[in-house]
């Protein structure tokens, strides 16, 4: 048994396995299948200052080894989360991290300020990379200047570990990562979904109501690994890796590329118990490779 615990900018995780926002609801939907407290933590559904209805149906297209979604941040808002949902999660012995999104800097700041007051929320993941909202979202994450501006503003009011979630839909993700590091981010998580599209040839129409959406699942893992590797070589802050992780081997690949923790996303839809298998699989890998600590494989890629 190796030591699986890891640390993301002052946030201690009992193991490096988190779940990705938007794929794990509020955690309790999975309690029939897994022990939530075995997770390093989970990141709840993308939350915005004000409630959002999200995009019209259809919101889903299945594609080879993946799926495209166009949910558009349907959620009940920060206040509802804090007063109605979080109290049910607060006593769980794991990290319940809130993914915060917005369409203008003021909304991000107000949401972060409110979440900062909740003692049992140990960190936030700032989503500047959602491809499915018209205003803001990914717009903030595609230009280094804008990304730095929103992170700086949130940093001024948010005192706990601040993880910034990056989009791969940019020319240089390393540049964006450097910009948010400079603006005070404690950590970056990457990648959000890849901007994509699906077409129904018979009906000669787009499959999604929004025409384009975000691709996730096994199909995007090679892109995500490349992004993690590039960012690892560009910044000093810890990286949370995600994008197409389906099993323990995938998770280990991200860690070898420099991720100190990982998020499991779309795989939860196919096997709701996959996170437990990934934790066990990482443990088994570390034993097999004679590692005492999970940190020994972070960035250990032999290039």
């Amino acid at each position, binding site marked *: 048994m190796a030591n699986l615990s890891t640390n993301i900018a002052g946030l201690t995780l009992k193991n490096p396995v988190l779940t990705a926002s*938007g*794929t*794990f*609801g509020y955690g309790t*939907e*999975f309690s*029939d*299948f897994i022990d939530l407290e075995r997770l390093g933590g989970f990141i709840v*559904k993308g939350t915005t200052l004000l409630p959002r*209805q*999200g995009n*019209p*149906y*259809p*919101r*889903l297209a*299945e*594609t*080879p*080894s*993946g*799926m495209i*979604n166009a*949910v558009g941040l*349907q959620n009940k808002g920060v206040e509802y989360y804090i007063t109605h949902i979080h109290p049910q999660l607060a006593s769980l012995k794991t990290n319940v991290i809130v993914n915060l999104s917005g369409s203008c800097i003021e909304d991000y700041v107000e949401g972060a300020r409110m979440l900062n007051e909740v003692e049992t929320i140990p960190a936030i993941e700032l989503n500047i990379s959602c491809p499915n909202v018209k205003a803001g979202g990914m717009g903030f994450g595609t230009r280094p200047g804008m990304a730095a501006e929103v992170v700086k503003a949130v940093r001024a009011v948010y005192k706990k570990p601040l993880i910034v979630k990056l989009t791969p839909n940019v020319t240089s993700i390393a540049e964006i990562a450097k910009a948010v590091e400079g603006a005070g981010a404690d950590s970056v998580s990457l990648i959000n979904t890849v901007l994509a599209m699906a077409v129904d040839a018979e009906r000669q129409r787009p499959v999604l109501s929004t025409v384009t959406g975000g691709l996730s*699942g*096994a199909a995007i893992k090679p892109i995500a690994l490349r992004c993690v590797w590039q960012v690892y070589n560009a910044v000093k802050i810890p990286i949370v890796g995600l994008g197409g992780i389906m099993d323990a081997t995938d998770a280990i690949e991200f860690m070898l590329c420099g991720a100190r923790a990982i998020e499991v996303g*779309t795989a*939860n*839809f*196919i*096997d*709701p*118990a996959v996170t437990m298998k990934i934790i066990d699989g990482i443990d088994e890998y570390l034993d097999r490779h004679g590692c005492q600590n999970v940190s020994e494989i972070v960035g250990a890629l032999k290039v």
Partner: protein
Amino acid sequence: MKKYITDFHVVTNEQLSDRLFILRLTPADGTPIATCLPGQFVELRVDNEPKVFLRRPISIHRVDRESNELWLLIQRAGDGTNKLANLRARDLLNILYPLGSGFTIDVDDQVKKYLLIGGGVGVAPLLETGYQLVEHGAQVSFLLGGKSCAEIAQVAQFRKVGKVYITTEDGSIIEGVDCQRGFVTQHSVLREGSFDAIRVCGPGPMMMAVARMVSCWKQNERPHFCEVSLENKMACGLGVCLCCVEDTKDGHKCVCTDGPVFDIKDLKW
């Protein structure tokens, strides 16, 4: 209701027509099948088919406690269901179940006569629904529609549970069954029956036609409730991906957890 991820063995895979087949499954470890409500569904993992990434949601057709079998009536619709159609006895199938809220079982002096309307593969959830309603003392009739009789599955099974009425678009008939030409909304039993509750599962246009017809009836002739079962495209089945939403009078609702069964008065139809 507790949900499970369970490996099932295929007991039989019976082709009913070009497009329809029935899988009879039993838990591989021999444990009893979990409690399922009528109208609930399962999500099947389709293995070894590179084009299929997500699980496939399929209605529960019947839970036969005696043989500990779960029956799924499936229509070939693409790569996933084609793969399932090729399963053979003893093959393993990983199942996430039971999912969704199901039809309400509500039988009393006021609500006793049920009409279950199905079209195409939409007849699937009505068999278990019929059995459970009869167990609760309801009087159940089925109204099943299709292009032709050959497309209406499991008529003999439905006849074991209640009276069966059929409509076919081509006018074909089944001996001994009240068959009429047309769509389900045109069958005379709807005018003569005075049903306390109606449940519908089938193609969208069929369900909408029934809903429209029911809301046009006079107040004292309307059933106490009319429920439909939707099949919006979904990924997780657990209410977390938010892909399968239906725009209801109360905002977006997940078909997988808030449904698949909805009362027509809650829909924007």
